[in-house]
């Protein structure tokens, strides 16, 4: 098992939920497939999905819901 990071592809606001009143996409400890969406990044009012990019188990999120993020900033750690 190796630990990888999932990076934000874009600068913007990171969201862990598809909508404010919906549950989070993924929780710490969830098993994910590489095509699974783990969050959204809002860039200039357009919403972009962030994919896990690898199959594994999410160790923890590094970015909070609604946190401003930079492109390339790690937003989660995943055990692959």
């Amino acid at each position: 098992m190796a630990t990888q990071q999932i990076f934000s592809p874009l600068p913007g606001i990171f969201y862990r939920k598809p909508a404010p009143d919906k549950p989070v996409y993924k929780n710490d400890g969830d098993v994910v497939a590489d095509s699974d969406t783990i969050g959204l990044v809002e860039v200039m009012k357009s919403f972009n999905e962030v994919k896990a990019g690898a199959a594994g188990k999410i160790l923890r999120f590094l970015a909070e819901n609604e946190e401003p993020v930079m492109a390339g900033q790690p937003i989660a750690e995943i055990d692959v």
Partner: protein
Amino acid sequence: MAIKKLLIANRGEIAVRIIRAARELGIVTVQVYSKADKDSLATRLADESIEIGPPQASKSYLNQAVILEAAKSAGADAIHPGYGFLAENAEFAGAVEASGLIFVGPTAQSIRLMGDKVAAREAAASAGVPTVPGSRGRLESIDEAFALVDKTGFPVMIKAAAGGGGRGIRIARSAEEFRHLMPQAQAEALAAFGDGGLYVEKLVEGARHIEVQVLGDGHDVIHCFERECSLQRRRQKVWEEAPSPSLAPAVREKLCASAVALAQAVNYRGAGTLEYLYDDRTHDFYFLEMNTRIQVEHPVTEMITGIDLVGEMIRIAGGERLRIRQHEVRVSGHSIEVRINAEDPSKNFSPNPGTVSALGVPGGDGVRFDSMLYQGYTVPPFYDSLLAKLIVHDEDRASAIRKLERALAELNVEGLATTKSLHQALTRDADVQAGRFHTAWLEPWLESHAATLAAPLPTAKVAP
């Protein structure tokens, strides 16, 4: 009471525009800014600036309490909301006035009335302004809805009473689709807006978007003629002009008079815009909604009438009566505005924040560039993509299009992709040149011109 110190509760190019207008009136400016806008042009230009929170708009530009506190601590006597953010928030307008400050805009009551689309339609109908055939108010039952579409025919739009900006709209082309979509739309409206209220309107296909600028002082109202904004992508205007290339003079007179009648009926105060659909085959126009604020595309009206709309709205907020009479408002020439957005036309308009590494601004007679850019500025990713507006004015529409083409070639924004190439392609299009378009014209055009947009024209050789 004249305004002495004005707080600008907005950002971007409109904040710069408001600072300029205020300064010309001898008013001190206070710019509020989020952490992401510390280096913005507006923050740099204003006499004073106050940080109001983190980048997220919900925690800064939409935070009413913090903005009111900033106004108090700066000793401002008025707040200009710009457009977007809190500009059409009746609660905020009320709170500003309750704390003894001036809200540069209409009363909270006007904002509330025009913000409720059903109430606005009812107000229009009682002022004798034509509205799109459809429900007079909210539909109370599915039976009532069916009785209505028997009269209007299809296609119809089902709209959420509490929706906006194109959200919560469905189109039914047959009774069967209508039966299927109504309950779905009701459930969705309830989930999205906490209000399941719906109304139904006939869909006027091939219609143009025409809007009338008004100015009121709470007693009298004048119009400053119309703008046409039919070139839209995803219901966002990309190119606006004044006057409309499609209105016959007799229709223009009726349209503008109807706007004044409605604004007068609600004792409107400040700058406002009444939006209409216009069917150029039948010459029918239908009131859609009223925007109770300054609009992005206000400069084209300023260019053809010579009226400083932002300056006038500040004077009116300070207690002055209208300084201009209707017969003094005259149209001279033609003006076009194009929106320079941080979007890449060759990549399906994907947003493109970044740092402006070089900037060449077009100039010359009849060219205006309302912008938030400077060389070295990093455009933050947190807000909308509007960077600047390029506005031209010339003696007629054909000359204005040629001037726009010339000015676009001089515009050089390096470091991030912009919508410049879209506008260059539009200026060269035969339908655009002939004014042959409607609100659903641009999107299919974008699909068929994807190759043109992927290979932009070169920028004229100008100093950066």
